[in-house]
């Protein structure tokens, strides 16, 4: 399903100007700082912000072009906003039914299966005012799924939640990535959420699209501001090969080596995504002897970014998977690091995502 978009929204202190042709599949994240225009872009796509200069089509359907404008309610959307925006006068069940009754013949999940998969059984008779933040967002997600949407739009669904609320909703969103029948557009300003949830990434800055592509390579592009962030990171695919419960460790296999992680609840044979922060990766020219760091991956330097505030970010190739490393410019100079050199990446921290 392709989404083609050309829009220019002008406000006194802000302009959003985007040309896009996205192959919507799985979860596409619209990622940027607040004020980058990502929420406005989502509202343009939904049709909640109507600007005469917008041209927009979804698959074969023209949603907006000149005078042609398909109203929001006829686009077949699912919608979850930051606050959830549940209907305050309806119970949880009433909210779910509201979406179900307006499917207009589209096929989709049954109410009971959504209630079950999001764990809403005990909430059905409550009013929205009686729900916690995490519960509210779960209901909002369930309501959106029950609309049997052709396109699901999520506007920072986690942003208003505390840590407990996030922990409640994240698993549901992770399952959504794997199970959703429809493409998902996900607005976020959190790299952590994007790393966990997005298949594709559209990077926005000051109303412009800076870059787009699959999440994993996007995170490691040194020409984009993502790799310059303090929390720049790389994602790797790994397989759980075994565990040493006595030592509190599990072993993950990568194409280019093994990683030990301090988690034992992982099922051997399962595939996981691991996240390596650039600042947690140091470099050595040779395998160090007598060193406390367990995780050492042989790698080749592919690219070196510009030095900023005394630090540089390097993109490494680790048997086909990319990893970022952030070291001081002084270290780079003293080791004489240059693209093409073989190094050993010393990994001080690994986070297993799912």
């Amino acid at each position, binding site marked *: 399903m392709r989404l083609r978009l050309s829009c220019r929204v002008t406000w006194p202190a802000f302009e959003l100007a985007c040309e896009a042709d996205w192959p919507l599949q799985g979860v596409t994240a619209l990622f940027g700082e607040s004020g980058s225009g990502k929420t406005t872009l989502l509202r343009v796509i939904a049709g909640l912000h109507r600007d005469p200069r917008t041209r927009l089509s979804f698959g074969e359907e023209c949603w907006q072009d000149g005078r042609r404008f398909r109203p929001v*309610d006829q686009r077949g959307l699912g*919608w979850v906003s930051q606050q959830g925006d549940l209907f305050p*006068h309806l119970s949880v069940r009433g909210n779910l039914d509201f979406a179900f009754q*307006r499917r207009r013949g589209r096929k989709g999940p049954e109410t009971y299966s959504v209630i079950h998969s999001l764990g809403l059984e005990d909430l059905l008779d409550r009013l929205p005012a009686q729900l916690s933040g995490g519960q509210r967002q779960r209901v909002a997600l369930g*309501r959106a799924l029950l609309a049997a949407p052709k396109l699901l739009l999520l506007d920072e669904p986690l942003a208003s939640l505390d840590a407990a609320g996030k922990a409640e909703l994240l698993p549901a969103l992770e399952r959504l990535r794997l199970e959703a029948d429809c493409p998902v557009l996900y607005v976020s300003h959190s790299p952590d959420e994007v790393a966990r949830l997005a298949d594709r990434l559209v990077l926005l800055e000051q109303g412009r699209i800076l870059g787009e592509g699959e999440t994993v390579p996007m995170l490691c592009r040194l020409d984009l501001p993502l790799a310059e962030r303090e929390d720049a990171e790389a994602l790797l695919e790994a397989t759980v090969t075994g565990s040493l419960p006595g030592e509190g460790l599990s072993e993950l296999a990568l194409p280019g080596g093994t990683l030990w992680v301090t988690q034992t609840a992982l099922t051997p044979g399962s595939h996981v995504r691991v996240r390596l922060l650039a600042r947690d990766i140091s470099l050595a020219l040779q395998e160090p002897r007598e060193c406390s760091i367990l995780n050492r991956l042989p790698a080749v330097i592919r690219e070196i970014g510009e030095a900023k505030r005394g630090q540089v970010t390097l993109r490494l190739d680790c048997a086909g998977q990319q990893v970022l490393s952030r070291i001081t410019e002084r270290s780079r100079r003293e080791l004489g690091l240059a693209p093409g050199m073989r190094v050993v990446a010393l990994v001080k921290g690994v986070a297993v995502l799912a």
Partner: protein
Amino acid sequence: MHHEVGLCPAMTDLLTPADWAALWITLRLALLTTLLLLGLGLPLAWWLARGRGPLRVGVEAVVALPLVLPPTVLGFYLLLALGPQGFPGAWWEALGLPRLVFSFPGLVLASLVYSLPFVVQPLTTAFRGLDDGVLDAASALGAGPLDRFRSIVLPQSRAGILAAAVLGFAHTVGEFGVVLMIGGNIPGETQVLSIAIYDQVESLAYGRAHMLSGLLLAGSLLLLLLVYGSRARKEARL
């Protein structure tokens, strides 16, 4: 006349046929006015609360005029406009329609103008207070404009609609100056309660004035209790 003041005998003994007629005309006038004003006020208030355009501010000011004008001023202009020499009164009569001044239809028309702000303002306030995000969610989930109005706007504005109806009704019941100017004081046709009471006091019939006044007092208190009671219940639910 002081011996007639008590409320002990049955009301039927105390109310004369003229009183009953005044009561009936008042209730009919207030009900009809309230219903018509709700029908007119809902779309008007929606437009005032959420519409755009340069006309909006002007209309809002005109709607609020009856709040500040002395009722006699309003009644005077209405009398001129609706009279056989006025506009649209002259057209109205040229079409062969029944006369508006000193008639019940004229009273209804005047009450519509006079009570309009009391219905429109609570509605506008209610509509302005609606959460845009909730309305956006409803549209995104497939609810068209009428569907949204019916399933989201009306249920969430219940308190505002009740307040609008009660205020419109009560205010029409309590109207005096405009009614006197437009309706005259024709018993059985345009004599409403407030004017009947005035007449009775003028003729020193304090007992009858007491009956009708007490009735109005109790009725108004009941209505207001209804409004505040429902608001309290709503707050208790949340």
